[in-house]
């Protein structure tokens, strides 16, 4: 009985949905709220920034003359722009490698531990929860402080951890690794836990050693996760700003200033918003290029086994 009643009732919404399909079939209606925000806060500022980079506009919005590519020409001839770009690249290389390798090592360690796993998991991940200001102050005053800091006292040295141009970048990298390795660690740990146990059992039966299992089962099974982590890490490292700005301000002798800080310095303390926009766009292009290269590499890798 009920079926005869419900049949037309269900039919009505179906036809209504069909009528509206042309409008919703791409899901436009569903993503509209996101699109509005995306356009207002990303696409529009992006275009605005591009326009600004072609003018000599200052922080007060005045002096808004069109100067063509003069800002870009100046940036490409600016040794400090190149120096800060190099610092960003250097930081990215120096930090990405330990962050990925150490993240994996810690995950393997915790995965194989049989007691108090929650404690290790928590202690490796906890620093990631701290805000950049807390991390920076902690390391500046507790650890790197030259006269009463932990590091110089423990090692009996007299190193200016943040004051020596040859050491400062390494100190920043060390802090960053401590701070953010927990995220990669967690991704790796999750991936490790999802590797089917029967693979290891089968390998054991075949007489594989622990090293063989790691090399032939664990690492290949983690390949996709590694790819993801490397992408995320490269992008995060290229965007480095907070901890360097807070700990060294780009010094000593510009040895740690990343390109984002250079854009900030020229824009917000040098008041040249036009030039700062041009510098930002140079970084933007660099990030786009790296992302495209990575995407291509991944596609190849994923296609190759087939």
């Amino acid at each position: 009985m009920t079926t005869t009643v419900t049949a037309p009732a269900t039919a009505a919404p179906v036809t209504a949905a069909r009528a509206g399909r042309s409008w919703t079939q791409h899901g436009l209606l569903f993503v509209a709220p996101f699109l509005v925000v995306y356009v207002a806060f990303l696409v529009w500022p992006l275009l605005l920034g591009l326009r600004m980079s072609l003018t000599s506009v200052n922080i007060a919005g005045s002096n808004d003359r069109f100067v063509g590519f003069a800002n870009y020409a100046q940036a490409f001839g600016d040794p400090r722009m190149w120096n800060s770009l190099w610092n960003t690249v250097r930081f990215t290389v120096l930090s990405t490698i330990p962050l990925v390798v150490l993240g994996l090592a810690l995950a393997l360690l915790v995965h194989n531990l049989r007691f108090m796993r929650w404690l290790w998991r928590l202690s490796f991940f906890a620093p990631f929860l701290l805000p950049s200001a807390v991390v920076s102050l902690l390391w500046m005053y507790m650890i790197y402080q030259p006269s009463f800091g932990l590091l110089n006292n423990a090692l009996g040295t007299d190193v200016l951890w943040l004051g020596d141009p040859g050491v400062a970048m390494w100190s920043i990298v060390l802090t960053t690794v401590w701070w953010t390795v927990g995220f990669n660690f967690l991704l790796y740990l999750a991936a490790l836990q999802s590797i089917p146990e029967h693979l290891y059992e089968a390998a054991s039966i075949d007489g594989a050693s622990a090293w063989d299992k790691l090399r032939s089962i664990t690492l290949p099974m983690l390949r996709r996760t590694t790819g993801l982590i490397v992408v995320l890490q490269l992008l995060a490292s290229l965007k480095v700003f907070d901890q360097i700005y807070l700990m060294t301000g780009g010094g000593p002798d510009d040895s740690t200033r990343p390109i984002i800080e250079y854009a900030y310095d020229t824009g917000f303390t040098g008041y040249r918003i036009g030039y700062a926009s041009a510098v930002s766009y140079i970084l933007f292009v660099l990030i786009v290029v790296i992302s495209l290269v990575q995407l291509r590499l991944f596609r190849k890798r994923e296609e190759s086994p087939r």
Partner: protein
Amino acid sequence: MDDIPPTPSPISRRNLLGGALALGLLGSGCSIPVDLGSSRTRVKYWHFLGASDGVIMNGMVGAFAGENPDLFVEENVLQWGEPYYTKIAMAGSGGRSPDVATFHLARLPGIGPGQILDPINLGLLAENGLRPEDFSPPIWERAHIDGVLYAVPFDAHPMVQYYNTDICGKAGLLGDDGKLLPTRGTDELLTALRKAKDALGGKPPLVFDTLGLGTVGPWRVWWSLYPQSGGTLLSEDGTQITIDDAKALEALTFMRTLGEEGLCNTTLDYPASVAAFQSGIAAFLWNGDWETTTFKLAEMPFSMARFPSVFGGDSAQADCHVFVVPHQRDRDPEVERATYRFIASLVKNSADWAVAGHVPAYLPALERPEYLALNPQSEYRSVITEVALDPQVWFAGSASRLWIEFGGAFSSVISGTRTPEQGLAVAKDALRRLMTTPNPFPEEPR
């Protein structure tokens, strides 16, 4: 605090050391709740006096409020240095800025007077009893850009020499009156420092901020020493570099000698240098005059003297605090009146301000008996005629690029990682770069 290095990172130095106490005391001043719906006229005042001189400023604002119950001054203490000037620039450009703000005189040319700042209303100034002839003439003159007054001078804060009277007494450096025996030239100063070093058991007797985030201490010391021998940085119109290499190197070599001989501690940043002097680890501190209250509150045995004369002259690096009126689109005439009443009250009471260590720019205050009775604040007042102000260019002034570039270049000379020649070359490169950088606020009618 005043001219501590322009630290982009902030919280740190101030809050942790010098500022922690002061900020606590300032609690009420930092964020007076906005008094909306009240019939009182509200004057919004921004400043960056966050340490021991901030306590004094807070007291002065409180005193003004007590005398003027119809007015309400909203005091907003912001972080000293580059971020402060960024905030002023952005507030002024939007036209919704505070009614009055404290500023550094040498920053005036770089901030786009007429765009970010509005001219001072001379009528209201006179109405409140402030006359041009009451201000120190060179400072009053520097407050004008192209003949228009953009700032009301408040004080000058020169580089001074703080000394620990106990240690200096032990080293035999004090005269019969208990005051530091003045030194002349390099040899006398080095001899005095060596004696103090012995009295301290071989520890460096002199401290100043020699390194750290955006350090400007090395610039301040160099800009005190180098002009003593008659050296200049730029031509009058700011278009030519006029650095006399021989004289500049003489000053830099002397600074290197201090580091090399262990006469000056080369591992201290700003707060650490103040803390080292305060805890009696060092006999001398070279710094601006604004830490006076810090050491007074610490009840330590100290006094102050003029920065030593080393290369002939008596000059010392200085900048001045002034009041400016950031640009507003629609200025309420009633608030404007109240603003000038407030400025006039602070300026006329600048003998109270001198307690913080600064030398008033308002001449009548210099004659006031309560100022002359201030000890040690009146010990160095004679320096006011021999201050080495910054060149009048857009990239100069407290926490400016000029200071940070030179501070960084000379920091490594003191520590020995650069030779004086290399340090000077780096500084000159930076100066050339600054001069070729287009002024973000070129002169243009609004």
